[in-house]
């Protein structure tokens, strides 16, 4: 049975709600849905946008894992990529700029039975929402996090983002980005309690899918940076890597991201044990090669929602307890 169904995980936190849910017949659980069944309206991204590729991989993942749409929540911030929940037939919450992670935290904290995904762009996650990003890594809640990194603010039309390569011109830094870019992988790997850090690329669909699948299977904060082309504002940032597989290096390991079928195209391979945090940090430094694969995984890192075990009471029991609490304040 796919993860997220009741009877597993945090249901102990809210057995009341869980048992309530269990008595309701769930229309979708007994039939298998295909990727198209998870689609909603026609996406309004530009032709050639990497978001389309991510949406396809997500739909495929949902179908592959047979996740019940009503028990799946996609939370996003603001930006091109944050429109993704609108194009899915699950629950979605298209919030405000930079704040997807606090909302996702609130959902997961009280409803561990739900499958929670957070979708953010590079401005969303690494700039305006950077504070939440750091702390969400530390909370290590069971949320699958997709950073759709096109290295630019696109919805607002071409402004430099924290991940824009140095020297790359935009409307706000027309002489080129002043500073070296922030590296989302090293930042994530630097935070205490990081538990899953991977990188993939939207133009390698099988690797993208396998990475999402591994992220989904990990119990904890699964951080996936997806390298992504913006055909309008950053068409060339990753274009050389798209045309020249020699610029890509796959991280391979038995516990890593499966790379079956990619051997012929991507010949650069780097063996890396995802338990090796030091090695992960070294490999995550950008040295001209785009490394795809699992950098780090630690299934034993504590999860915030697991540390918060709460008793469950009926309303009457709570009121009786409260009445006793008033005794302490009695005159």
């Amino acid at each position, binding site marked *: 049975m796919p993860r997220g169904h009741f009877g597993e995980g945090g249901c102990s936190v809210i057995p009341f709600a869980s048992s309530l849910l269990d008595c309701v017949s769930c229309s979708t659980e007994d039939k298998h849905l295909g990727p198209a069944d998870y689609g909603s309206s026609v996406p309004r991204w530009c032709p050639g946008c990497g978001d389309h590729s991510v949406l396809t991989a997500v739909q495929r993942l949902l179908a592959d894992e047979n996740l019940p749409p009503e028990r*799946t929540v996609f939370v996003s911030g603001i930006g091109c990529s944050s429109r993704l929940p609108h194009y899915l037939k699950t629950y979605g919450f298209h919030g405000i700029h930079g704040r997807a992670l606090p909302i996702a935290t*609130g959902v997961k*904290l009280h*409803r561990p039975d739900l499958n929670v995904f957070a979708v953010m762009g590079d401005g969303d996650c690494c700039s305006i929402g950077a504070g939440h990003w750091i702390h969400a890594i530390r909370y290590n809640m069971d949320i699958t996090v997709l950073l759709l990194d096109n290295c630019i603010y696109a919805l607002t039309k071409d402004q430099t983002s924290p991940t824009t390569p140095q020297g790359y011109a935009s409307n706000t830094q027309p002489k080129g980005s002043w500073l070296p870019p922030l590296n989302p992988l090293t930042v994530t790997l630097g935070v205490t309690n990081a538990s899953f850090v991977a990188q993939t690329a939207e133009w390698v669909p099988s690797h993208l899918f396998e990475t999402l699948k591994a992220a989904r299977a990990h119990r904890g904060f699964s951080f996936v940076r997806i390298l992504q082309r913006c055909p309008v504002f950053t068409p060339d940032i990753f274009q050389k890597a798209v045309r020249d597989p020699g610029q890509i290096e796959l991280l391979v390991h038995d516990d890593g991201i499966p790379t079956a079928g990619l051997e012929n195209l991507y010949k650069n391979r780097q063996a890396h044990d995802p338990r090796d945090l030091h090695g992960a940090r070294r490999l995550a430094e950008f040295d001209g090669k785009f490394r795809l694969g699992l950098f780090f995984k630690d299934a034993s890192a504590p999860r915030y929602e697991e540390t918060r075990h709460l008793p469950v009471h009926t309303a009457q029991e709570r009121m009786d307890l409260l009445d006793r*609490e*008033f005794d302490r304040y009695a005159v």
Partner: protein
Amino acid sequence: MTDTTTKPARTSASAVAAANPRIIEAREHTVEIVSDSGEGAQKCGQIFGAVSAKMGNGVWTVEIIPAEIQPPARSVAGASGNRIRIGSGPVTNWGDEAHLVVAFNEQVVLGRHRLEALADDCVILIEDMWASHPDEAVRAAWTAAIEELSSKPYRVIRVPMEERCLTLVENARKGKNMFVLGMLSCIYGRDLQRVKDQIAHQFRKKSQELYEQNVGLMELGHAWAAENLDFRVNVPGMADTGEMVVMNGNEAIGMGCVASGMDLCSMYPITPATSVSHYLSEVFEKFGGMVHQAEDEIAAIGVAIGASYAGKTAFTVTSGPGLALKTEFIGLAIMAEIPLVIVNVQRGGPSTGLPTKVEQGDLLSALYAQPGDAPRVVIAPATIEECFHVVVTARRIAEAFRTPVIILTDANLATGVQPFARPKLDVRWHASPPDQSPVSAGKGPFEWDTRTGLSERFIPGQAGGMHTLTGLSHDEKSRVAYDAATHQRGCAMRSRKLAVLQQTLKTPEIHGDAAGDLLVVGWGSTKGAIEEAVDRARAEGLSVSSVHLRFLSPMEPGLGEMFRRFKKVFTVEINYSDDPSDPFITDENRRRGQLSWMLRAQTLVDVDCWTRVFGEPLRPGQILQAIHDRCPGATSGKGGAL
């Protein structure tokens, strides 16, 4: 000043006076205990207040708090302690000036003197060790302070607190407060068994040894006072007060959250709101609730919104600067119609302002901080008892109307302690379990009833209810829509909910006659002080009434009609307004008190205002002065500092 150097000695004359003390009969009396931070004055005051409540007195206890944790010792600005006002009937505010002050050093009482907190005939019981301190600078400071205090006819009585305490303990700094408690117990005739019981309760987490030491010190103070003081104060208690509880406003908020069935308190530390979460952190898990300390104010409300979206009942608690940070998320909750309770314990602003001090300066920002039209509910409890009940009301409104509800309290309610009738708990105050029944095909999450603006909410887990909430303009199915008609309709539907709620509210009751010369309008923590001032004015024969508003958005009905029955209407608020007599201020450019600004817009009545931002609760005497200034035929009575 009389008796500047009164130092009771065991001469035969004073022994006679002490043996036959003068009894001061009083309907009410106000005591202050002031010390440096960390000397335990607040614990002493809390015990004295609780014992007085148990003996049937009406009580209002308020903390006197410096802004720093450890301000310099013996500093004028560092006064830390309590004011306890006790009465023969219910006490609703902290009163005007103190009648008796116990000071652990001369500097802290000087601070109170300069704030005009002391009555002219105030008795000051002061630790006298500083007069003979080995450090010459300390002795000089003592002399200068006593000299300054002599500008008023206070009666200063020197008390050898340190000296007496050292007969029992090695370090008098820890324990002097119990000596003071003993003195007060003697002066006010407190029942010693109740005092001991309360000491036991206060130090319940400490050892038996400490309890016994504290009782010993208390008895020492009691004995000293019995032997040396020539006066007692008798404030008779009420015969039967019914079952009462006593707590501060923040504890009442915390208990209200439990009573309302809240699941989550998501917060970030900020003064003076934090003690709500301190209280809940201690007890909430026992009830199955959770306190989540988020990484910042924005995340705190974001987590609460996420939990609420997922079908749980959640609230966040903050103060002005935090409310400012939460602005964008509140707009999202309004736009996406997510139930949420936001408690704002107001402090002095703008910016970091006066972190520990009271102000009612966030009314307009609570109402209007968001971009666009963002209707929400704003309620202000007026008493500590209401702090408890308001959360139940707020939670129900939030869910019934799918809207954020902002509760405005302030530092006065947060730290004020007052007994009130023990609530009779009702299980219906709890939230119903979330509806998880499947949604019929094709139904959208914003299918507004066009008459009321209300719509049914679907939460994750409900089969068939899948949709994506958004802060973008959206249609009935939560689809992003930019067309003019959709945006106009969505705004109208969200606004209509407030009109519907307003239709369910009652016109607030008038304190006093329904028509007359002058109507005082207030909101929030000032109710007790305003009504006391109005009562005094009415006793003088003035035609004055008052009305107190609980709902600030939507406003209660019938206000315009009510106001027109009075010749003059003015608000009393703890926020800034221009004084009409100040340079450049005209009727046209005058910036008015926040409630008066709203009432003028709402009622088209020329509502005046009297507001102050002294960083302390209003005194009834100040309000009475403002009434005199506006009331035809008033003889100028004794007011407070203006």
